[in-house]
């Protein structure tokens, strides 16, 4: 009784619902027994991870689905102990090095290097056994590579070349912009775009059919749009709709998640009144969002989307520009709240001025 997303996750390249051409290419790539380092990127909810798991299955067979979680502790040169979780099967190791925060470099240096080196003998013996005719010994799957520090990425460069003979790296990230050039050039980049609305709809439909439900096309489309073509989200929404009301109706209300509701309320609070007191309240709300680990970029994006709908033409440009400005500084700075608050303050000042000027213009 798991959620639909997980229940109907495809497990082989052949069963993928969209980007089938790419799936075929990957299949061909693996078929020849070897493949270069891969850099799989694309927005969240596009199916990167699913695709990678399918690829691994294609490579090693069903044994790759026997996963275990391993808890590793690494001692940094500075005697600092770093605890990190990894997911492993007999054939591959999945690590999210960015979990280690600033010491991710140590994880890359120690963990991956040791894995790549130590398993050599074991797996070479296995190769001698001629197991499945696979020439790649082991695969290390690094997730969220774009959140690695620059230091860690540099540490990765040499490792990738040095142990090319024994292991392959599959890097998974949302955006390549934060991956340094040297790494990008060492990998075969595989972009996994979001499914189109139609593709999302068809996936929703097929899932509902498997569940024995009838999904109106209208609703499917609305869900697809509302989820922003994020398939994971679309499926979760769809299931939430099912819980809320069945049989489905086309005009059914699609429930928002709590944080989205909260963010919208915050935006409304900003628009409804511009004053220092209100700014204080908004600060409290922003803190609430941040303490719930909502990434500041998403907060600012959500705010802008809501705020823009309340703005007039030329104000829109100004606000959007301000948002971009502060979002950029957000990346450069330490404390997200400063920049979010500065954005809100800026908006309040601009908006107030605009409104009052507008009123004056109307009066005279």
């Amino acid at each position, binding site marked *: *009784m*798991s*959620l639909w*997303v*997980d229940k109907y*996750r495809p497990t082989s390249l052949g069963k993928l619902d969209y980007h089938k051409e790419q799936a075929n290419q990957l299949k061909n790539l693996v078929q020849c027994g070897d493949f270069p380092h891969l850099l799989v990127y694309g927005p*969240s*909810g596009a199916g990167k*991870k*699913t695709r990678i*798991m399918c690829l691994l299955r294609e490579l090693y067979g069903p044994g790759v*689905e*026997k*996963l*275990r*979680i*391993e*808890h590793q502790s690494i001692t940094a040169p500075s005697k600092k102990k770093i605890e990190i*979780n990894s*997911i492993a099967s007999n054939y591959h190791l999945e690590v*999210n090095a960015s*979990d280690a925060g600033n010491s991710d470099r140590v994880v890359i240096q120690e963990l991956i290097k040791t894995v790549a080196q130590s398993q050599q003998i074991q797996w070479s013996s296995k190769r001698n056994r001629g197991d499945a005719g696979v020439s790649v010994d082991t695969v290390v799957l690094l*997730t969220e590579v774009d959140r690695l520090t620059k230091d860690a990425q540099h540490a990765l460069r040499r490792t990738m070349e040095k142990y090319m003979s024994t292991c392959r790296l599959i890097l998974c990230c949302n955006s390549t912009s934060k991956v340094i050039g040297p790494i990008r050039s060492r990998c075969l980049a595989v972009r996994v775009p979001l499914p189109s609305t139609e593709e999302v709809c068809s996936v929703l439909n097929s899932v509902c059919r498997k569940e024995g439900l009838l999904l109106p096309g209208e609703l499917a489309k609305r869900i697809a749009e509302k989820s922003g073509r994020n398939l*994971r*989200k679309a499926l*979760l929404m769809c*299931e939430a709709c099912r*819980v809320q009301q069945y049989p489905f109706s086309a005009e059914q209300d699609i429930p928002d*998640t*709590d*944080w989205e509701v909260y963010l919208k309320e915050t935006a409304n609070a900003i628009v409804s009144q*511009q004053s*220092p007191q209100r*700014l*204080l309240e908004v*600060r409290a709300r922003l*803190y*609430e969002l*941040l*303490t*719930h*680990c*909502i*990434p500041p970029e*998403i907060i600012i994006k959500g705010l802008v989307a809501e705020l823009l709908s309340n703005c007039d033409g030329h104000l829109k440009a100004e606000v959007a520009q301000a948002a971009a400005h502060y979002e950029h*500084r957000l990346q*450069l*700075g*330490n*404390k997200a*709240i*400063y*920049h979010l*608050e*500065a954005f809100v*303050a*800026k908006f309040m*000042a601009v908006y*107030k*001025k605009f409104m009052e000027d507008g009123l004056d213009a109307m009066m005279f």
Partner: protein
Amino acid sequence: MDIRQFFQPKLTANSGAKPKLPKSNSISVNDDSKKKKKSSSKDESSPKAEKPSAKRKKRAVIDSDSEEEKPRKKAQKAPKEPEKSHKPAALVKKDPVHYVSETDSDSDTFESLKKPSKPRENGLSSLKAVGRGKGKPPAVKSPPKPSSAPGKARVKSPVTPTTPKSTPPQSKHTPVSVLDYFGQSSIQRSEKKLVASTKRKAGHDDSQSDEAIAKQLQMDEDMELEKQLHEDEEFARTLAMLDEAPQPKKARRDSGEKPGSPSSPIKSGPSHTASSSHSQPNGKASDSQEAPGPSTKIARSPLKTSSKLALMKKREEEEGARKKDPPKATLIISPKKESPASSSSSRPATQAVTTPKVEKISPKKAESVSPEDSEKKRVNSQAYRNYLNREGPRALGSKEIPEGAENCLEGLTFVVTGVLECMERDEAKSLIERYGGKVTGNVSRKTSYLVLGRDSGASKTEKAQGFGTKILDEDGLLALIRSKPGKKSKYEIAAEAENKISKSRTPEPQRSRPKGSPQKPSPRGKGEGREARKGLSFSQRAASPSPSSSSEASLLWVDKYRPRALKGLIGQQGEQSCANKLLRWLQSWHRHHTGDKKPAARFGKFGGKDDGSGFKAALLSGPPGVGKTTTAALVCEEVGYSYVEMNASCTRSKNSLKVVVAESLNNTSIKNFYAGASQTVSSKHVLIMDEVDGMAGNEDRGGIQEMISLIKQTKIPIIFMCNDRNHQKIRSLANYCFDLRFQRPRVEQIKGAMMSIAFKEGLKVPPPALNEIILASNQDIRQVLHNLSMWSATDKVMTYDQAKADAKNARKDMKMGPFDVCRKVFTSGEETAHMSLIDKSDLFFHDYSLAPLFVQENYLHVRPAAAGGNLKSHLVLLSKTADSICDGDLVDRQIRSRQTWSLLPTQAIYASVLPGELMRGYMNQFPTFPSWLGKFSSTGKHNRIIQELASHMSLRTHSSKQSVNLEYLPYLRSALLRPLESQGAEGAPQAVQFMDDYDLVREDVDNIMEISTWAGRPEPYSKLDPKVKAAFTRAYNKEAHLTPYSLQVVKKGKRGGAEPELGGEEGVQEAQEEEEEEEGVATDAMIKKKKAKVSKDIKQEKAVDSGKGKGKGKGKGKASAKK
């Protein structure tokens, strides 16, 4: 400090005075007077008995208050009665009542009776002299006074004697008011002052013993303090009272009239007043102990109290005041008569009485105000709003500041109100102070000028009008400075006088000289006594060096003027001072510890005992430069002990301590050896361990422990000294020591001593400048001396400006807390107006990690002056400030990530100076502590929780932490809760099943609930019926749950019941076997492998197939197997 102290002298004074009083009565005998005589005769017998009981006196005073109301009523009636002729009758009527009330209150009444009696008598006597001259008014008033305000009269009458010659200030006030308001009277205060002054002088003339004078001075001082306290209270009250416009005005008129009466007494009794007023010069010439300076100052302080009294009385009595006035006038004269006779000691007593009065009266005021409060409040609040919005000076620096003659404003008191056009208020203040004037915060009778600016407070103006204070505008002030002739500072005069004395007198008189001299220089009435004391102490100090001055010429001042006797210590003169405690402790040390061999019995860290007799060592702690070392040395000398001093310059390791100290302590003193006194170990040693907190490093290792063991077996007293008593190193030591903490002496205490040193060195420092210097050094006597000596090297004459500038340079860096920093960053006002850019950025560096957080947290609470109340510009300013703070954050990032600490000043500008500049204004609340810190830590916590959740579910979700948080969690929660909500307890197994599918444990559920609740939104889980929750928990606990990850040991407890056998290696083996039985070989192999890999966590680690059926099957199978 107690009122008690004052009472004793007073009583004596009364007793002395009484014999005279009857005589005066006899002259103007009324029916009343006879009755009074009876009472007075009682009094005469009583005073001696009562003297010791200070409490009684208090009570007496209280009684008098209670009586006051009656008299008031009477007073109102009184005006209607016919005038002179009726006096006696009125008196008769009222007096009986009066007595009755007094008699009710036991023996205490004696006192109260006494007082009223005195004034009356005096008044009668004076009536003859003065009343005739004035004609009707005095006569009319005189009768009611005794009757109408027995309480007040009683209280006041004592006051009158106390007040010293207010001549200089008074004269200013009085002439104006007298002419205007001649007929009316509420003169009491001014007269009182006169009387007091005369008394004082008389005392001086008598050339009493030094000790007496010193005592007196101290008492004065104490009283001044008290008065000040009262003043503050008054302040608050007067604010409220200002609102009652009508009443105060009347009262003021009355007050104005009062001065008239004082004038009359002066005229009538020229001999006394003249003697008092003129005695100053005479005193100088003849005695040289008396200087004009002190007298004026003293006069002022009483004025304050008296003025308050007057106000209150006026309001209360308004009409009755007229009648009372004459008696007062009479009073004036009589005290004068008394004063010469009564010793100076009488003065304190009377003052003591006055102070209580003030207290009592003030409450009355408050009551009276209450009815009109609401209106006042409204007006006040409006005024306050205006105050918040008022602008700064408009034409700053537009007028030329004149160069006045030196000390031209000396003896004048100013109050500045409102906004001056061409200078900031503190500029004005320093301008006035530079020319010897004094600036106070509130208008009182003493105030000579009110400098009025724009938007001034109505209360001050009204008050000033009431007091007849001259009101100046800014130009007037400047003109005053320009026009006033310069004077010789009284300090100089005093110093010269002192000089003369020192020359003329032999060493013995020297002692007395200082007492006189300090009096004069004392700039304020308050500080006077203290300074005098200090001067006293100092003189001794100074006296001893003088003979050998030639040899000491090269010495540092600090050594040159090091106190040579206990009495010379600054700030250690009190009975309970550290020095005295130490002295007593040392004196009794041998009694407690050596003679008998059972000191252990007394040993104890009880600490409850004040004398520290249980301790074998003493620990002196306090800030540097307050005289710890000097105290210790002097105390030893005083007791006649010889001491061995070890300080940080000696090695004090365990071994060296043992060798050096232990041996030297057991030595026979060579002195005794020669004297042939004893061959035994001398007990007259003290070991002084200075700077114990300086014991550090390898050299002194184990030093503290050694010292503690030393304390345990010592045969002589040990004195330790340190600065920070709470230091880690000292704490263990402190347990074994008699704890004496030195406080910083007060400014006045230091100032007295410093003034005389300055004089001895021929350095001319104006007292306000000295104040600055002392404050700048944070009351560090040593540093003050060093600074003085350094400056004296360049120039022997110091001006106020120079001293202020120098003091600023020498100002010790003060550590400010982040709250103060934050406040200072944003608030506009005098203290921040003149800060340079460097000063402002220095604020940031008080704590560069916290300062930006404080600024960011609080900038929203500031109402910027620049916005001028306009919301739009306020928002623009906010936005700019926020931008600047962001810039600061960017710099911060650079600093922290690249260790480029040289960027800190840049951050200071962005994160503190710019926001301060933009938002400078009014802060309407206390700065709040930055919430960022708390939020940051809770963000971290949530982050960890989410990471844990994500890793637990990672086998099913294959997604990152972020997408788990943003996308999965809300739906997971609803999926978990749905069965529980819809089916209640029935749904529990379903929910548990769901948890198993996602490999969640019970804690995870709680975490999910915690993390997905939002402020101001309902939490669905907490809404569940407790029964359902219990069922859910039970359902979860019923089965064993296998997780693909290792659980923390802590969590084992919860699962303990289900799988206790998994505890160790054996457990794993068993589990393995179980599973082998039921499951295929695949899992078995996995378990083995795992065991090999992760040896640490064998017990809990389980492998679970990702396949759907297997995990469940295993779990069930296992559970059933156990059953």
